[in-house]
């Protein structure tokens, strides 16, 4: 148990510290790298909870894909640091307000959980002990919540198509490579045999 506690405190400390560094780092690329560290240690916390499937998904989806795109964009930005600093004072009240509301909400939720106020009414769903947590997630996701699950898939699909529609523009004069045409092209269609008389050239 002691080892688990040590692991928890180390991971939690790294997560919080990395989260703080995300907002306080001067270089935006460093911010994203700290964000990745925060994701990674959050995945470690999931492993401690025994939710190894969620941990792996967190790493695959957020660290492996989302954060790569973040990094991709941030690296190509030409950030003016002085301008960034100037905006700071203006956004402090708004940011502070949002942070304050979030803090109050979290305190309320955690105090109710601690006193088992709202949760005591219905039993916490217990994972069956004989199946892995992939299987138990699958059982719940594809039975009780199948409609919600499919609906969220549709929402993502719509968002994806929307992003493509918004950014796709056909330039009328752009030349594109049509691979099928190139493959289908044979000597008959691609070549013309002409007989040229000596001394006259091709002459159109």
């Amino acid at each position, binding site marked *: 148990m002691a*080892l688990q506690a040590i692991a928890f405190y180390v991971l939690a400390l790294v997560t919080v510290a990395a989260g703080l560094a995300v907002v306080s780092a001067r*270089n935006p*690329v*460093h911010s994203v*790298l700290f964000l*990745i560290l925060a994701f990674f240690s959050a995945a470690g916390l999931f492993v401690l909870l025994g939710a*190894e*499937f969620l941990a*792996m*998904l967190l*790493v*695959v989806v957020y*660290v*492996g*894909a989302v954060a*790569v*795109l973040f*990094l*991709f964009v941030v*690296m*190509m930005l030409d950030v003016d640091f002085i301008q960034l600093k100037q905006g700071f004072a203006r956004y402090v009240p708004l940011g502070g307000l949002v942070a304050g509301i979030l803090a109050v909400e979290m305190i309320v939720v955690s105090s109710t959980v601690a006193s088992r106020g709202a949760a005591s009414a219905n039993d916490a769903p217990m994972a069956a002990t004989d199946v*892995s947590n*992939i299987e138990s997630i699958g059982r719940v996701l594809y039975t009780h919540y199948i409609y919600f699950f499919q609906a969220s898939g549709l929402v993502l699909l719509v968002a994806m198509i929307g992003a493509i529609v918004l950014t796709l523009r056909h330039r009328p004069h752009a030349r594109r*490579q049509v*691979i099928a045409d190139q493959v289908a092209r044979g000597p008959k269609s691609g070549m013309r045999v002409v007989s040229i008389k000596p001394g006259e050239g091709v002459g159109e």
Partner: protein
Amino acid sequence: MVDFWATPGGWTLITLGQILLILVPLLLLLAVLIVADRKIWAGVQMRKGPNVVGPFGWLQAFADLLKFVLKELVIPDGADKFVFLLAPVLTFGLAFVAWAVIPFAPGWVLSNINVGILYIFAISSLGVYGIIMGGWASNSKYPFLGSLRSAAQMVSYEVSIGFVIITVVLLAGTLNLQTIVEKQAGWFWNWNVLGGGLKNLPMALVMIPMMVVFFISSLAETNRPPFDLPEAESELVAGYQVEYSSTPFLLFMIGELANIVLMCAMISLLFFGGWQPGFPTPFLADWSPFAASLFGFVCFFIKSMIFFFLFAMAKAIVPRYRYDQLMRLGWKVFLPMSLVAVAIVAAWRVFAPAAGA
């Protein structure tokens, strides 16, 4: 003393020993494979390859190692020093971390977790960070362009690798690598590449192309020729590793090679039955457990090395892809193919008369 090995301290010592037991032979193997790779490449081009250091040049890798370690470490002016040095260490570390869940033989696995295949997928998707960070931190144009190319390339091919892995997982019904291999026991038609069992034989029509997709995608994922666009000497000098010298460059190189061998091991585990020799092995029951495991390990090793040979041959005989062709292949050919394959395999598992687990 028996008690000591059950305490946290003893457990740590055992695990450390196991890690060394994997790492040291693996590093030695990589040293041999670097030379083997060059020898195969040379053989295709009718050259001799490295033939000076040691018998037939097989110690060339150690000479290279000494050369790299003894050279001066140059850090470019204006480079982000910490990230610049972190990048090769990350590449190197991640390439070896993934080996923790590879089952080498029956029972020979460091960590038999039940999301093993996802773990490898997660670790290999992190590999891109080493390259992006290295390219960005160099504070130079060629490395930066190389790293951007590589990021796009690796993310693209990861998608089809993910779908191919899902087809295997659907056939096997588990994410545990050890169980996936155990299910492919018996004759070679039980291997996943032939659908995993005679009653699933029609799935061979799907799984053989999926094996090919996985092989080609892993070439792209590990930045091997013909997909070595991140380094493309002829266009980008050497891509993300232009500014690297000495030991950091060595770390990049070893990390890349370890990833290649990992991918070879993955192909043999997922599609070709890992340590299963391809015929029933009732005689193993009379052998000592260690000998039986050793037999399995030899099978696994031979299979992996066959795929390493294919990797080396691909490097020798296939010309480099153009970047738009690479993207087209990834998104317009492999992604639809593997998506359809997932749908077919899933439908087969549900509707096929005798498909049961």
